[in-house]
């Protein structure tokens, strides 16, 4: 076990507390850099989605994880970013300009949403953000002069530095990865600045934060704006990745997926956003695998266990019928959410921390270290 001696505040807020961090993140970076040349194009394409979802996850994490303001409307911010990019692109605006414009416009709209949200708490905020998302979805479908309504919009390939960046090229992957890394580093810096401290203070107790002199309204609006802006940047990349956008892509379902990203990853650390994004994006390949390979394997196992050929074929059929059933993805989502909330509320990253701590403290690990406190009095109604 490594003991860290911190002698001043600078030590406490360092991005890389010791050389081990540099080594492991450096290795990860190298692996990510060689990934597009080694892995199949399908997996690389999934990795691009991981980057985009993780970027949104980081944005949502700032708002929900660190400022404590739940939002089920982030699909709307993504949509605003995507549509801004697609709209500006029609007038041959260069990529860097409309990329920034997408983020800025979404940030401004995020701030505008943040103002009314100041008066709302908990469940009301969730409902208000859902309503906001539904209204944006309807506007996108109706404002045909700008958004082409339900026909959707085509998004051309990126023109950057005189070259084209097709949506399935390694260059696009590096672009998304770069945006993700910049977002993460920026957010880490934000979180160790006074602004980030204020966010966390508001999350932990609004009253306490206010009495310590934090301007709660200002920082809540800031948090909304920053979170929305990051989501807007991701929206621009999302539009380019899909090359076609239409209102029915940005439904409540997508907002819930983003919440699942941070919930499964762990809502208290940026690692969670990335882990959750990997998890959500990789469900699809997993389901394909389930559909294609598992029925045969199950039948093989059944055959070796002594079932007749006919029986094995029957088992194979029923398993494949189950695996290719229509709503299976939704059912798996549902079960995963419930199980995580019930048994692993700290998410995947929390599980990793627990495992790490277990080995660090080897014989002395206590489960109670991570036990949550239950509050039965009606606190939330009065908070």
């Amino acid at each position: 076990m490594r003991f860290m001696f911190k002698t001043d505040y600078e030590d406490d807020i360092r991005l890389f507390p010791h050389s081990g961090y540099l080594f492991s993140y450096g290795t990860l970076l190298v692996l990510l850099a060689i990934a597009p040349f080694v892995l199949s194009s399908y997996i690389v394409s999934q990795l691009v989605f991981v980057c985009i979802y993780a970027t949104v996850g980081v944005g949502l994490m700032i708002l929900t994880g660190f400022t404590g303001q739940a939002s089920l409307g982030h699909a709307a911010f993504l949509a605003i970013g995507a549509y801004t990019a697609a709209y500006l692109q029609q007038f041959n605006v260069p990529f860097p300009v409309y990329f920034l414009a997408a983020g800025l416009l979404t940030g401004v709209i995020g701030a505008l949403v943040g103002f009314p949200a100041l008066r709302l708490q908990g469940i009301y905020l969730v409902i208000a953000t859902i309503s906001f998302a539904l209204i944006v979805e309807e506007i996108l479908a109706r404002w045909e002069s700008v958004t082409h309504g339900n026909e959707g919009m085509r998004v051309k390939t990126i023109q950057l530095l005189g070259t084209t960046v097709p949506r399935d090229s390694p260059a696009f992957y590096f672009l998304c990865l770069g945006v993700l890394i910049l977002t993460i580093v920026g957010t880490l810096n934000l979180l160790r600045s006074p602004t980030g401290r204020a966010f966390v203070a508001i999350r932990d107790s609004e009253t306490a934060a206010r009495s310590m002199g934090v301007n709660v309204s200002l920082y809540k609006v800031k948090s909304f704006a920053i979170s929305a802006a990051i989501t807007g940047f991701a929206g621009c990349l999302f539009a380019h990745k899909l090359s076609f956008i239409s209102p029915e892509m940005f439904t409540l379902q997508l907002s819930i997926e983003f919440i699942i990203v941070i919930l499964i990853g762990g809502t208290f650390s940026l690692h969670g956003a990335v882990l959750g994004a990997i998890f959500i994006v990789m469900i699809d390949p997993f389901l394909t695998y389930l559909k294609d390979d598992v029925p045969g394997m199950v039948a093989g196992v059944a055959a070796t266990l002594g079932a007749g050929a006919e029986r094995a074929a029957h088992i194979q059929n029923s398993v494949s019928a189950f695996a290719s059933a229509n709503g299976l993805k939704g059912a798996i989502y549902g079960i995963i959410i419930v199980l995580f909330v019930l048994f692993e509320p700290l998410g995947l990253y929390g599980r990793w921390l627990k495992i790490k701590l277990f080995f660090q403290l080897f014989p002395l690990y206590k489960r109670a270290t991570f036990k949550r406190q239950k509050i039965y009095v009606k606190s939330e109604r009065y908070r």
Partner: protein
Amino acid sequence: MLDFVQQLVSGVALGCVYGLIALGFVLVYKATEVVNFAQGDLMMLGGFFAFTFIGLLGFNYWIGFACAVAAMALFGMLAERLVVRPILGYPQFSIIMATIGLGYFLRSVVGMIWGTDDFKIETPFSQGVLRIGSLVLAYDKLSVIAATVILCALLYLFFKRTMLGTAMRASSENMLAAYYMGIPVKRVVSIVWAISASVATCAGVLLAPITFIHSNVGLVLGLKAFPAAVLGGFGSIPGAVVGGVLIGVIESMAGFYLAEGWKDVAPYVVLLAVLLLKPEGLFGLRIRKKV
């Protein structure tokens, strides 16, 4: 004028369904501080149970209705026991997520079992209209309104007059104090979930003749029931029904008098306006912040 009354009645009928779903929200919220995002899906599941009993097994309408309500009451208790009870007392956000997950699960499982088509339940009031002068009112819409009134009256009597109802009101005021007074809070909460699922089932069965039942109906209507509950002030039972009726009427009027597209958005615009101007709703209590 005639159009107006016609729209008003269909708005009120639809609003009653919203109100019944919102009633389910409010019952559970009052008792446990849990907002059940799966309420709409409970309604959908209730509708499918009724469809199975009446449409597939060929039960009499009323017997099938009763069976569906009983089955859903059990299901509500089961859902409470498995999903909600373990996380009571944790932050609201995790409970919201758990019920969203439950809703997801129910929707896809229903889609897998019954398929994703539209289903219709034959009811005694499916046919036939009531004519008053030149005004034509369909029986199915009137039946929804009548049933909502009866259900509300029953619930009102239950909460005011029975021991169990009083216990429920007590534990919704303060769970811990109720527990100290000897009220079996866990069982009470379980029964609240059963009642809320039964109310949702009534909404589902009543809805079936007006719009068809399909696996996503719960999501659509559940989302519309939020404005209803918020408009009524989230903790108020009469408020939920009144809010539901108002939202139904607003939606129906917006669909008739305003441009296309307003019909779907109007409830949410109203919701945001209410949240901004009068966050405690029409019937809610103004609660002071405490440190």
